[in-house]
């Protein structure tokens, strides 16, 4: 795998292979010695045009556990108006020896541009681009869900027949897009739930159901409910009448959580707006995978770095 840009291009076998390698990585993280020598001598650059301490730290930890040299480069605000700087920055990083460039960028498609432009030879790993995709987030979500469902027997398995609700701001969510493709590729049945103003126009062909009514969707007793973070800038942009109305209609409140079966997994990519899209009682319950998702993030990114840095066959 030369690059990891989106989950849309992954076949079922490829996706399962990545999840299985993630299992191997997760197994090494149970040991006393967590560090592997695998990427010794390789240089991983975290090129972040957008703040995200959580994702950056997760990639940094993953690269370090694989013994890669890690350079973190925060380029926030330096680029979008001056287009050429993406090229310049990438070429500069390659000139200092980057083998893998982990890119987080506010503009959809920037990692793909970097991978396909011919500017650089390094591998490109998409760490979230605009409102397009966030493939490692979806992979870690799928990994977490597969572990909850299949436990130690997860290897080789998909998520066939698993019913997942993805709730919130679908329109602006790269996490939602990556999850839609990956979960459906793995055989899960995905339903998108949210206000009509935050549902993308033109998703008739997506392999999902859509609903504007959370209570209705929850009544089907889904296997997993994935709550998305609502960005504060949406609150004031007339997508919904008020934060209170959003929370009332589309938040996973204590009452809604209480009505769910105890087998329903509650997921959130973080950081959470507690009491807004998710009640603390849900976030902190044994049904919640919030912390498992964080630790799965390191294993998933180890797998992604390993597979791209070595160019391993998928």
């Amino acid at each position: 795998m030369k690059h990891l840009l989106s989950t849309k291009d992954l076949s079922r076998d490829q996706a399962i292979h990545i999840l299985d390698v993630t299992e191997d990585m997760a197994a090494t993280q149970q040991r006393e010695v967590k560090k592997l020598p695998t990427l010794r001598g390789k240089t991983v650059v975290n090129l972040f045009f957008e703040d995200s301490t959580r994702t950056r730290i997760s990639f940094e930890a993953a690269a370090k556990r694989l013994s890669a040299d890690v350079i973190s480069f925060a380029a926030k605000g330096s680029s979008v108006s001056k287009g050429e700087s993406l090229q310049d920055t990438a070429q500069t990083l390659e000139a200092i020896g980057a083998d893998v460039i982990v890119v987080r960028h506010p503009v959809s498609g920037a990692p793909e541009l970097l991978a396909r432009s011919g500017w650089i030879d390094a591998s490109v790993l998409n760490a979230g681009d605009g409102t397009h995709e966030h493939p490692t987030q979806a992979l870690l979500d799928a990994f977490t869900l597969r572990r909850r469902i299949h436990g130690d027997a997860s290897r080789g398995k998909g998520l066939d027949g698993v019913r997942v609700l993805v709730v919130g701001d679908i329109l602006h969510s790269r996490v939602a897009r990556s999850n839609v493709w990956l979960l459906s590729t793995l055989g899960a049945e995905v339903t998108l739930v949210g206000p009509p103003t935050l549902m993308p126009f033109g998703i008739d062909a997506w392999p999902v159901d859509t609903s504007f009514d959370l209570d209705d969707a929850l009544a089907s007793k889904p296997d997993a409910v994935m709550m998305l973070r609502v960005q504060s800038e949406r609150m004031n942009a007339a997508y919904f009448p008020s934060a209170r109305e959003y929370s009332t209609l589309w938040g996973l409140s204590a009452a809604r959580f209480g009505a769910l079966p105890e087998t329903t997994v509650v997921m959130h990519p973080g950081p959470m707006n507690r009491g807004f899209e998710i009640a603390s009682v849900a976030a902190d319950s044994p049904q919640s995978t919030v912390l498992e998702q964080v630790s799965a993030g390191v294993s998933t990114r180890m797998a992604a770095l390993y597979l791209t840095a070595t160019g391993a066959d998928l």
Partner: protein
Amino acid sequence: MTRTPDRLADPRTAHPIIVRGAQLSDGERTDIRLEGGRVVELGSSLDARGAETIDADGLIALPGLVDLHTHLRQPGGEGSETVLTGTRAAAKGGFTAVNAMANTDPVADTASVVEQVHALGVASGYATVRPIGAVTRGLRGEQLADIGAMARSSARVRVFSDDGICVSDPLLMRRALEYIRTFDGVLAQHAQEPRLTEGAQLNEGAVSAELGLAGWPAVAEESIIARDVLLAEHTGARLHVCHLSTAGSVDVIRWAKSRGIRVTAEVTPHHLLLTDEEARGYDARFKVNPPLRTQADVEAVRAGLADGTIDIVATDHAPHGADAKSCEWNAAANGMVGLESALSVVQSTMVDTGLIGWTDVERVLSIAPARIGDVTGHGEPIAVGSSASITLFDPSARIDFGVEQLAGKSRNSPYLGRSLPGAVRWTFHGGVVTVADGALVELGEK
């Protein structure tokens, strides 16, 4: 025969030319004698004594093409195009007249700017340049530009447009239409409802949803066109709709014309051929405004052009330097160059598909745009006494379209790497050869 550029550049002293065996748009085969900037004789086996003979066997002779929508970038954007380089691109594509859009720096909102552009066009010699005047001062949409002064200037401006920006204020739009009506000018509107397209990057639809690019909904174009045709009806003024791109827009224009409203519409070659699917891969060469639409829209605009609802094809030739395109999609500039490829794209999408014939091509790429823009001396069907602005086109050629086909300054063509039918072999601008056997002629400074 050796061509001496300085003599050729002046129609009064240019060699007489016999075009041997060309096919007119109606299919008739004829020789054409060009002399003193005019067509002086038609017929078979014309006497070639004292004239240069051009073998036009298999070539179609069209009146020189007229583009109602060209960005020449001068003044202010000389890094990506100048009047000279843009008219060279025009000649390469078989155009003998272009209407230069007003969004230059400074904006063409005063008589002095349009006169400067006009003079640069005369100096270039490759094509007639008709400056388009801005509707509002600085394209800011606040107060009217010096419309009357530009109309009365030596540039004799008849087309007014804030292209790139929509005249969205309905009151200002009404005033502009009323004002322009007094000298039977035309307002060429860039139809884009600004609030519905804040941050818009790509046609709102399946592709934008998947790629995570902010959508540019069809309704943002259609709602402005609907409003504008009603304002045109109310004021009795002429409205021209730039680069119409959606199926719904075709319906609105069709309705307006059925009511007798004085509206004309254009479609670009790229909206006749390309769809938003091209945006997959995020190659900003395909970023344009209005955006590439869906296959259903492509089919609707082709049908609209075929049935006359859409009057003309105009290129929206929009040169940009490499830096403006080899960058993140959102940071990239809108626009594509199109002069050199327009006729081939029209052949590919409209003629080879059987939707229209060559008389229609002549109409939509020469006669009608010259009429709408009041471009005198152009868009005249080839006849004794008509202008010697003529294009000889080989419809049986097929070219692998590459940068060598581009004669302007910029390389942002969406067709690079594609195979296109047809090739412009000769272009005569007022009797002056600007393209000879497919190659641009160096005219030199006049």
